[in-house]
């Protein structure tokens, strides 16, 4: 018999229902990743006992680790399932939804809190308009290197899943949103909102809630220097604190 791959998948039928584990076996095929195996389950939705079950629900889109959609916890580690090659995973391969977000169904979770955080830190350039105003300011290649790295964040959730401070019961902004605040604070025109952003970061749920565990930077699939971003914002915030104190 050809080789079979074993999966243990933590499933949950709805937001309120209790989770349960279900085992699946999938025929081994070369060059498989976790997603191609989930697709095999879709095309033949039987569990390991041979019972017909509903196919596993998960989110995915680009399948090349640039959209952030397919994040889940695989063998205890948070990562994108598209770039999780089964040849490199121990069996049984355990798939779980991220724990820091409400489960929608099976491996799909609701990450809207991360997008709301981007609103709070006003992660945008306040452009005058979308008509022809010529090019932006000149920017050195050194500045671009730093900005580009920060801008690669795909709001996937790995950093906050790994963070001991981020929980369903608090309103911590998390590393991803703070990193965006740093990105726009260093932009030639984005920095006009710097003070507003820092004011938000100095409130509850902001920088002071970071416990400096440094898990975020380890978990980031794009190797974004998240702890550096938080430290940098910390410095900006203390300056602002003293400025606020003396100008009030």
């Amino acid at each position, binding site marked *: 018999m050809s080789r079979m791959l074993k999966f243990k998948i933590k499933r949950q*039928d*709805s937001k309120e229902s209790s989770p349960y584990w279900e085992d699946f076996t999938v025929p081994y*095929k*070369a*060059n*498989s*990743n976790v*997603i*191609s195996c989930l*697709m095999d389950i*879709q*095309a*033949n*939705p039987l569990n390991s006992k041979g019972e017909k079950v*509903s*196919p596993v*629900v998960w*989110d995915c*889109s*680009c*399948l*090349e680790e*640039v*959209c*952030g*959609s397919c994040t889940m916890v695989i063998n205890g580690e948070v990562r994108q399932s*598209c*770039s999780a*090659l089964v040849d490199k995973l121990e069996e049984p391969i355990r798939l779980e939804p991220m724990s820091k977000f409400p489960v*929608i*169904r099976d491996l*799909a979770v609701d990450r*809207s809190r991360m*997008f709301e955080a*981007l*609103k709070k830190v006003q*992660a*945008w350039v*306040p*452009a005058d*308009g*979308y008509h*022809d*105003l010529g*090019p*932006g300011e*000149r*920017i*050195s*290649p050194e*500045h*671009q290197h730093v900005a*580009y790295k920060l*801008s*690669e964040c*795909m*709001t996937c959730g790995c950093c906050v899943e790994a963070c001991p401070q981020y929980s369903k019961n608090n309103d911590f902004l998390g590393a991803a949103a703070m990193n965006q605040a740093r990105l726009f604070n260093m*932009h030639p*025109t*984005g920095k006009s909102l710097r003070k507003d952003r820092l004011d938000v970061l100095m409130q509850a749920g902001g920088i002071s809630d970071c416990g400096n565990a440094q898990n975020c930077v380890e978990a980031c699939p794009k190797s974004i220097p998240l702890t550096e971003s938080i430290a940098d914002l910390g410095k900006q915030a203390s300056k602002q604190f003293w400025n606020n104190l003396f100008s009030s």
Partner: protein
Amino acid sequence: MADQRVIIIGGGLAGLAATMKIAELGTKVLLVSFQPVKRSHSVCAQGGINGAVNIKGEGDSPEIHFYDTVKGGDFLANQPLCKDMCYHAPFVIYLLDRLGVPFNRTPEGNLDFRRFGGTLHHRTAFAGATTGQQLLYALDEQVRRFETRGLVEKMEWHEYLGAVLDSEGRCVGATINNLRTGEIRSERGDAVILATGGPGLVYGRSTNSMVCTGTATTSAYLQGAKYGNPEFIQIHPSAIPGRDKLRLMSESARGEGGRVWVPRKGGDERKPKDIPEAERLYFLEEKYPRFGNLVPRDVGAREIYDICINEKLGVHGEMKVYLDLTHKSREFLDDRLGGILEIYEKFTGVDPREEPMEIFPAVHYSMGGIWTDFESTDDGFINHQSPQNQMTSIQGLYAAGEADYQYHGANRLGANSLLSCIYTGLMMGPGVVNYLKNLPQAASEMPSSMFDGDEKRWKDRFSEISQMSGSENPYALHNELAEAMISNVLIVRENEKLGATLKVIEDIESRWKNIECVDTQDWTNPVPSFVNQLWNMIQLSKIITMGALQRDEFRGSHYKPDFDLNQPDDFDPADYLEFEDQKFNGGVHKDQFASSHLDYMERFEKNNENWLKSSIATYNNGKPTIDYEQVDTSLIAPRPRKYD
């Protein structure tokens, strides 16, 4: 007039650009997306965005960009639109720069530009090798800004099912499926824009994201909208094979000096680095000394097919060639191509900075799409105030981005898609707002009976799908459709196989009725939605295949060897202009041209009379028909393409 709003379907570059422009003009937008807009397929675009800024002092200009685009598309694109797009391209890049896109820079701090396919100029602005992602993020941020001001309302995790049409056939809203609750509702909108991208999933595995089913545009076609040039599907020369998808390896790898080669001797199993230079065949450089590795994609994909299938020189005897960057420094590569090289390394385990990559051609982009209109000015540009711009053949229903058909002709140039998406989204804004101003009644004031019918129709449809209890698994059936399309409607097309494929598709269509809806839950059940999408993919695959079958010629990405005009190797396209000129002025001086050239030019001219036309598919009484429509070639005279 009472409150009006525009419904925009799709949050990729075209949808977001339209959203921010229309919101800027003060009109409310309801933005509907299958997933959070920040995850849209535009993030997969890698290499860059074209605009003739002439930063390198090469004498580049929008007019040359326009010419390259039209020639790249084998003259099948409507020219005033291409012209207007290319002339606005530098502005689009400057705007993105102002919005914070971290474009790569020159030492002086200017925007840097690199080479891309189908041009001899450095015309492509880029942010590493994740330009699409960076552009999408900049627009996403602007739209989020309007969201906080209440001008934009987002409905993410919702799917467009169809347009709501009034008694005169005008679009007054859209029926939307909530992918979480399964609730189906018709939303009122004074205009609806489909910015829903391409249909790569018709081919199963492609470079497209999993959401790219083409289902929204197909739904418009099934409701009576014209669909243009369905058979023109771009095959990208360089992708990485994968079980779940074919990951793109950007053309920018060649733009930055990557070289494509195969061992000169078939079956040479030495490691690529052990094969000496003299025993490597750089087949693109040899055959196309001027454009080399940067020939347009249709040419590149065909040459790879030829070298692997006809010459049997593919790497490991497979449909694969080497793409080699190992002669470049790590630092250079990480700065300019980091994103894609990391992807290659992650998915194959091989470091492309040390070993040549193994790549092969994959379905990438649809030049065709929903037919859309435009209004040109006397000097060959577009009147940006016209409500006709980007309007489909259904009044009030618009399309933009990859969803429409008219910017790239028979073959798109690399880095023109990010441009066409953002350009159309911005360009169409004022016209759509003008359309709203001229409406006799706001959708919000219309009786609810106008919307109830469609809502019920779609509810019934989904309830029927949910109860399907046949024996076909919808995902397995999709794999079969994809297999038929990949095998027969790809780089090389033959009428016999195309005819047989239509029969296979019809068989799959009848088996669709015997599907089992394999998930019966009410909450967050993706299966009914997929079953509906599969129906639409079947309908779309029919017109892709029919279009290919009917078009008996070779143009751009549509290659039929039986109808190749066989351009003589030593032919100069300028001769054709001279030939046409002489013809216009009374008669051809036949002694001036080699007789083989003369024959070729006669064949070329005759072929254009027959086929320099857009294919227009329409759906009537459950059946597709394909007719043909003139292309606006008023600005650049069609001529044979040549890249060597």
